[in-house]
């Protein structure tokens, strides 16, 4: 009797058409599933999508909200792209964002640095904070061959606890009742925003510049070359004398630092104080992993993917406000899109065919 066997063979050069069509197919599935959710809320899917797009792009306000959310994804995403290029799996961006926020907050609240230098100091220390946090996992990986995925992941929770400790304890704000948060930062620690929007332009510009720098670094410099060799195969790197330990440390340092910058950006540009960790990092650390992955670890492409996810978040927020659909819908969309995309990526680089299995062929 015949049995159908699923045959998966590698296809060496997926055609552009294949990639596009599979990606659309993937997105379509995601949209379909989302539509089902809308229906359970008695909302017409079309209506929901209309509001979604309006919320993400429909007005200047909407676009500014999108950009506002793009910035931390951009900064963190670039760092992760950098790290993933070296095959160093930094899952700890969420915690590194928080450490950046912590260091930045300390400078803002307690360092007494005068106005013109305050912001610069905040950012410098924020970078440092995230970088050092990442280095913990990096050193463990280099010196003791401890898997950086688990260590960086665990450190996320330790970081969240540190924030909680600080805002409930030594840094507790004077006016705080109920929810805990620190005092508001002095105005010199606030990032300037574009006009009446809430977009801190400084971090936006920094983000784009860093994207460019990273791109050039990876593709046009000898250091970038070394990173790519290490990311491809450690054996080969060692054969030609590249120090893969140093590269791994550098990768974590940079990605942690950039996440730290994102953290400072949030507390100084949006909240103006330090508060509950989940309100600061907002899962950006995890979303940024998808941002980087989707951009195939190309820092320039991260600009686009960060924008895409920023739009997702602000669109989802609009739905929450106007239709009462919880914010978690964004997570559903994120999850579905991610699933569809990784499944389809596998499908484009492989050729799926169905084969009749008869007795002879069966292995």
């Amino acid at each position, binding site marked *: 009797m015949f049995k159908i066997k699923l045959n998966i063979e590698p296809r060496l050069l997926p055609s552009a058409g294949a990639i596009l069509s599979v990606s659309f197919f993937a997105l379509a599935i995601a949209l379909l599933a989302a539509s089902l959710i809308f229906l359970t809320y008695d909302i017409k899917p079309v209506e929901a999508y209309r509001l979604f797009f309006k919320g993400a792009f429909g007005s200047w306000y909407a676009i500014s909200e999108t950009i506002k959310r793009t910035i931390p994804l951009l900064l963190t995403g670039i760092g992760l792209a950098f790290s993933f290029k070296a095959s160093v799996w930094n899952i700890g961006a969420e915690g590194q964002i928080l450490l950046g926020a912590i260091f930045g907050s300390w400078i803002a609240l307690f360092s007494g640095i005068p106005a013109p230098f305050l912001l610069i100091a905040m950012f410098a220390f924020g970078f440092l904070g995230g970088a050092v946090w990442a280095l913990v996992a990096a050193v*463990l990986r280099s010196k003791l061959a401890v898997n950086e*995925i688990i260590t960086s992941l665990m450190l996320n*929770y330790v970081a969240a*606890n540190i924030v909680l400790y600080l805002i409930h304890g030594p840094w507790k704000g004077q006016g705080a009742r109920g929810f805990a948060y620190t005092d508001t930062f002095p105005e010199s620690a606030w990032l300037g925003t574009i006009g009446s929007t809430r977009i801190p332009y400084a971090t936006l510009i920094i983000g784009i510049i860093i994207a460019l720098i990273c791109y050039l670094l990876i593709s046009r410099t000898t250091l970038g070359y070394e990173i790519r060799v290490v990311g491809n195969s450690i054996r080969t790197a060692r054969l030609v004398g590249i120090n893969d330990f140093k590269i791994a440390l550098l990768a974590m340092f940079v990605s942690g630092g950039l996440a730290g910058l994102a953290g400072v950006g949030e507390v100084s540009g949006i909240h103006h104080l330090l508060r509950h960790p989940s309100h600061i990092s907002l899962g950006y650390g995890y979303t940024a992993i998808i941002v980087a992955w989707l951009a195939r670890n190309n820092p320039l492409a991260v600009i686009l993917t960060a924008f895409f996810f920023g739009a997702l978040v602000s669109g989802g927020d609009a739905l929450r406000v106007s239709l009462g*659909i919880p914010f978690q819908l964004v997570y*559903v969309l994120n999850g579905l899109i991610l699933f569809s995309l990784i499944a389809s990526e596998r499908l484009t680089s492989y050729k799926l065919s169905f084969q009749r299995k008869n007795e002879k062929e069966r292995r």
Partner: protein
Amino acid sequence: MDLEFWIVTTLNRALAYGTPILLATLGEIYAERSGVLNLGVEGMMILGAFFAFCTTFFTANPWLGVLIGALVAGLASLLHAFLSITLRVNQIISGLALTMLGLGISGTLGRGWEGKILESTIASVEIDYLSKIPILGPILFTNQNSLVHLSILIAFGLWFLLFKTRIGISIRAVGENPAAADVMGINVWKIRYLCVFLGGLLAGLAGSYLSVAYQPAWASGMTAGMGWLAVALTIFAFWNPLLGMVGAFLFGALYHLSFRLQNWVAPEILNSLPYLFPIVVLIIVARFASKKRIGAPAVLGQPYKRGE
């Protein structure tokens, strides 16, 4: 305060609080033993919690709720299984997507369910004769939920299954040297699917416990990172169900203590400990265990393809 009373209460609460972590950890141990890293535990737990709550609300049957919760989570895990095992995608990304999906679906569907009250839940019980046993009695059998008892039995059962049965040998082989298992006729993919599915069921059961027995209540995000804790404890337990039990109840005790000791020790420090333990374990494993080979299953996270 009477020291003995204090210890007994702590241990009692440790069991109560540690049970969902235990269940989730047991599930992850099995998945990882077969070689599949499942970072979607948090998502599966919360899915279980919500669907158990829902079902119990509509049917007034908490046990049915628990069953449905576990099944939904199990089905969700199959998504990760399909991507990781059949399509061989990056298991980290797939697991993260599952978590996102689980948190998202439960949060989206669950709004408006907060604050609802369940008429029938799985309540704590006191078992007459058994609760009179010195020391163990008050800890285990007084004011303790039957799901707690069930979980402990499951832990022992899964330990036995893994180390003392034929299929346990196969599971461990699949996670260490799938090629060897394949050649001996073991269906590597089937074993992996089953283990991941079991992981999903147990994570769902853990969530159900929270919403139908422990609290009982539903609130968005109520699992509060317990799923990640399970991933951590899997390592702390050296992938052994009995040690997993120790770890889960230890964490339960710590959590309880963090409330009690609030005046002396900041709760955040105690709350951080469960996340630092696995790092310590990994260091020990890296340093010393390479000789004793008590580390992670050798091919954890690597998809299997025949001929590679």
